[in-house]
């Protein structure tokens, strides 16, 4: 495949080249919608049948960390959009700076996710043999707020009265929690890898006002991953906060 400057041989103009790339990217993203869609489908059905267990599971999540992550991710979408703008108007240094900011924010998101996962391991909330939905209520850590533990115990006893199989059904919630946030995090990791490549390309001056397709395409991917989180946040963290 020969290339004349920025134009690959099979295209007539740079405009056509970019529009082809955008169409291909959107088609890829529509397959991603259905890829995540299967998990959302599973979530919908199980939440419909086991609402009590899903509410209890959701309330064990740390809303402060989840909320912070939501803000961080939306902010990273802003910096990504800004780097697309900077590359369009030919501000090379700003393109690089906004890409680095996006990478830093994306990494911060993953770091907070690690803290959240660690909490779930500590509280025996990872599906499997040792799963115990009331582990934290039974074994509170010394620095846990006694009032909060009391409230959790009360919530759990009410939930067990409604759903005797709460422990099994809460595992469904946590399977979906780890499955959905895990698949989302995998997309973030891939996105971060692509950002590293973009930053390198940007530093060596590969992007100009006429050729900035990679910045824009990876931008589309990054915003899509943001949209998935926009749905995951209320569906996983905010099921039953009004107890």
């Amino acid at each position, binding site marked *: 495949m020969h290339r004349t400057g920025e134009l690959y041989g099979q295209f007539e103009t740079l*405009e056509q080249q*970019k*529009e082809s790339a*955008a*169409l291909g990217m*959107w*088609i890829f*993203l*529509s397959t991603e*919608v*259905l890829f995540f*869609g*299967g998990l*959302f*489908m599973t979530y*919908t*059905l199980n939440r*419909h*049948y086991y609402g009590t267990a899903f509410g209890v599971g959701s309330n064990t999540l740390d*809303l402060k960390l989840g*909320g912070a992550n*939501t*803000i961080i991710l*939306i*902010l990273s*979408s*802003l910096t*990504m*959009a*800004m780097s697309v*703008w900077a590359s*369009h*108007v030919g501000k090379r240094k700003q393109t690089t700076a906004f890409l680095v900011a996006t990478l830093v924010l994306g990494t911060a998101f993953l770091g907070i996710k690690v803290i959240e996962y660690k909490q779930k391991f500590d509280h025996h909330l990872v599906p499997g043999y040792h799963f115990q939905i009331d582990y934290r209520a039974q074994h509170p850590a010394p620095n846990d707020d006694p009032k909060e533990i009391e409230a959790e115990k009360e919530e759990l006893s009410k939930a067990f009265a409604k759903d005797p*199989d709460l422990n*099994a059904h809460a595992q469904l919630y946590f399977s979906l929690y780890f499955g959905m946030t895990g698949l989302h995090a995998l997309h973030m990791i891939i996105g971060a890898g692509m950002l590293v490549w973009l930053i390198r390309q940007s530093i060596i001056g590969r992007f100009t006002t006429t050729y900035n397709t990679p910045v*824009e395409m990876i*931008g*589309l991917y990054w*915003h*899509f991953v*943001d*949209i998935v989180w*926009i*749905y995951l*946040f*209320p*569906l996983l963290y*905010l099921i039953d*906060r*009004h107890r």
Partner: protein
Amino acid sequence: MPEHIVPPKVYVGIFLSLMVLTAATVAAAYVNLGPFNIVIALAIASVKATLVVLFFMHARYSPGRTHMVIIAAVFWLAIMLALTLSDYVTRDRDVTVNAQITGMLGT
């Protein structure tokens, strides 16, 4: 067709709207609205997603064929959700009850 360059102030405006909507979704979750909690949560999330698609992802400034792909994606997702749910909600409720599964396994 000349390329549309979206000015930064549009991006910042969209970002601020997304922040306000995030605050609204958290606030709404603390009010007991019965079955409408999930409706409001999904409605707010959909408004946020639409803003991201239209402005951050430039769909508003994209050609018709891009719109077609976006609409197709949403439509296919709707087919999956609607047809699967129409199956589940018209069957006996205990289709997923463990007793039946263990019965089938003969354990």
